[in-house]
């Protein structure tokens, strides 16, 4: 699903170039649950943003679901991202002024899903994540765990093949964190969703199938 070849991410600084990532070679197969680990500043978030097509200023080769990202223009990258990737954030990043229902609906509306179809898809998602009773609440009326549940539901609502999660339990206490990780595991095992997560936690990494470690922008063997 993902293939990185000799990917560098360089920041030109006054004192000389700074390599945030250097010579990254990575394969992620469909159905993988990959955890990226490493100390602060090791480049794991940088890598995640490259995988998520948020960052375009890298060198090397990057294939996503068979498409050569390094050859695509901005518009095509955006289409690729819309079609295949869902995001889960550490800070949930729910839209404060929208209800739970509306937050789930937003990715569908951006994909021009007809209104009548959206309703069914959102209701299915609410049902699946057991948050039907919360659909009219605003994010600030939910606990952190509930917000992240909505965040995951929102990431999945457009049925992406790949979920990228940046410290998804970073703002949650341990019980809530465990529940979220079990949900990820279930999604990966039962639904076949490919997941790449960035985490500091060995426990969380344990829920995945593979671990990649970074230090000083390089992958450790």
């Amino acid at each position: 699903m993902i293939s990185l070849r000799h990917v560098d991410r360089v920041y030109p600084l006054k004192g000389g170039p700074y390599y945030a990532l250097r010579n990254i070679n990575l394969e992620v197969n469909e159905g993988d649950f990959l955890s990226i680990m490493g100390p602060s500043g090791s480049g794991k978030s940088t890598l995640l943003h490259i995988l998520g097509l948020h960052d375009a200023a890298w060198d090397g080769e990057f294939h996503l679901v068979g498409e050569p990202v390094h050859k695509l223009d901005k518009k095509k990258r955006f289409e690729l991202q819309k079609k295949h990737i869902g995001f889960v954030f550490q800070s949930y990043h729910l839209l404060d002024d929208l209800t739970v229902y509306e937050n789930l609906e937003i990715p569908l509306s951006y994909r021009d899903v007809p209104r009548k179809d959206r309703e069914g898809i959102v209701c299915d998602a609410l049902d699946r994540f057991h948050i039907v009773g919360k659909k009219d609440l605003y994010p600030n009326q939910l606990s952190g765990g509930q917000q992240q549940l909505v965040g995951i539901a929102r990431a999945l609502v457009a049925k992406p093949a790949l979920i990228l999660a940046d410290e998804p339990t970073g703002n949650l206490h341990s019980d809530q964190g465990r529940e979220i990780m079990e949900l990820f595991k279930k999604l990966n095992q039962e639904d076949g969703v490919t997941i790449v997560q960035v985490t500091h936690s060995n426990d969380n990494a344990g829920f995945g199938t593979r671990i990649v470690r970074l230090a000083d922008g390089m992958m450790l063997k």
Partner: protein
Amino acid sequence: MLADLKFALRQLAKTPGFTAVALLTLALGIGANTAIFSVVKSVLLSPLPYPGPGRLVVLWEDETNFQQASIAWPDLQDWQRDNTAFTALGGYRRDNYALTGRGEPEMLRGARASAALFDAIKLPPQLGRVFTAAEDKVGAPGLVVLSHGLWQRQFGGTPDALGKTLTLNGESYTVIGVLPAEFGSPTGVDFWTQLARGSDNPNWQNRSNHPGIYAIGRMKPGQTFATALADLKRISARIAQDHPDDSTGVTASGQLLFDSTVGDYRRGLTVLLGAVGLVLLIACANLANLLLARSAARESEFAVRAALGASRGRLVRQLLLESLVLALGGGVLGVILAGWARSGIVALSPAGVTRFQQTAIDAPVLAVTFGLALITALVFGLWPAWKAAQPDLRSSLASGGRTGSDGPGATRAREALIVAEVALTLMLLVGAGLLLRSFERMQTANLGFAAHGVLTARLSLPKKNYGTKEQIDTFGDRLLERVRALPGVKSADLATNSPLNTGWQTSFLPEGHAPWPAGQNPLAEMNVVSDGYFRTLGIPLLRGRAFGPEDGLKSPRTAIIDQAFADKFWPGADPVGQKMTLSGDPAVVVGVVPTLKVYGYASEPKLVQAYLAARQDAPDDFALLVRTDGDAAALASSVRRVVSEIDPNQPVWNVRTLDDRIDASFSTPRLYTFLLAIFAGLALLLAAVGLYGVLAYQVSRRTREFGIRLALGSLTSQITTLVLRRGLRLLAAGLAVGLLGALALGRVLGTLLYRTSSFDPAVVGGVAGLLGVVALLACWLPARRAARVNPLIALRAD
């Protein structure tokens, strides 16, 4: 789209402070533009209400020493007969007529017109008919065509008016038609009657006599104003060749009727339209700034939306929708404000100019308003939307949108907007300041006479009842005797022209001076006055004496001249006792008075001035001037009563104090000054709010930085200086740019200014100082807030 609209409304409702400020800013900007545009549309853009209005021209004659003179009657006949450029060309002359026999005598404003005038204007009568060329001749019975207003007033708007007779100046006229309300050429006329019917007046046959006749012509298709005028000038040249004594230097002139109707207001209203445009630009700059700040605060939201699949177009659309909702709301409020402003502007507008009174917030004005609202939404919304729609996903999503400061680009953009606002505001303030200075100078201009405490009234004695000098003198003597006996009256006198009234001009030749070359004879502004005229108007006698009983019919004809006359023709000599030919008859100078600004503050006297004694001339159309120590206006009813007691059929009109009449002559500059001052004030307020907003926003974004600085030992005064310095830098840049703009604006204002330089240093310095003080206050408030940051709280928030 509906979801985006719902979200936009929810966003605006969530921030009522921002929404209120934005709506008010837009309402003021759009409202001011709507109000002024409604006036501009009515006055400058609406065509004249006649068929083919662009082909109508108003015509007169220019003389070598006098522009816009009326047309000699024989010249008009030659124009009518020989021109090839006009389908119709008719003359008219305004006259006052006493209407009697229908209750209270009333003075009506009539126009003696050629039948061809109606052919030229081509607006059919609403009722009955107009007179024909066959009916417009000496000896024909008197016919009148009523204006819509007089028809309503005198006949209640019934068709029975046709065939009725009106007694005008003691003569009977038959009503044959009624013209529609929109027929207004010449303006302010109550009725039209035949022009040629009175052409047996011997004076009219003299080509050197210009008896108040002007003309309106309709150009043939294919003619331009230039070619049509050239055609008439060709005829003028021939007339001058055939009658060199009378017509040398006399030539046809004129302008499009539309320009003649609105020309006086074009520059002023264009300046006002430009001013409100600047106000709207300032409002847009403010809103763009507010939206930029708001977008920065919502950076995280846009980043999430982008991460969830929102394209840039989609984000721009959503933000523009918010701007559009604001702009439409501002537009609705603006229309309400414009409705109020329209009433105020109409109340302040020059009296009798119907195009001002017809100002309305109608469908085209509303269309322009909402078009403006849409453009405004794009102007203030597009840039912030475009900026917001390209969030830096990495940093926004990583920080949760809580970045410590904006990028240098965003800061520069906000600061550029403020510099623009300050510059535009300075331009408007300088414009308003110049007009205020000019207006002050108008009001304090020395006109040469003491207007305060003087009541003026106009009387026109009909020839039928007052055909001899004795009859006129008897009426005048009785009038003055009784008015002078009224309680509170200090003096009362008569004059053919009271100040600010159009007078008459005549040629003269000082004794011993070589005859003037043909067409080069200078003219004198004339007035025939009773003995105490100069005393009543507080005009000092510089030399010689005033008129008195010694200036009787059997005495030599005497004249009093103004200082300019004396300086020009008897420099260094005593003008008293000098002789000249004045208006064809000999006269001896008995006195000298100062030069008066007889046409008011705005026009410098172009002609020398001369006075004749009423005792020797007996004018039948004159002004009564009454000086009192008390309230001059309160004398009006007493004066009317006195006239009525002497002759119950004699109307008296235009009974007003001289102060009132001078004040009315300020109405147009007052309107421009008042409005520009309001718009400049508005701009100042918006700029101050804008400057405050930007600095306050920067302070709020830099709270952490200030907390750190304070924690590291910075003095609060250093923090204050830090913020103030930033604000003052913007102010200085704005003032510098604004000064250049003010220079350009001063040039545009040029002709609207009275005795005021278009770059008056005191005005420019004063308003720059005012703007500086207001801006300093706007900077100081956020600077003070920055200095009061509590480091503990600021750093804990991090």
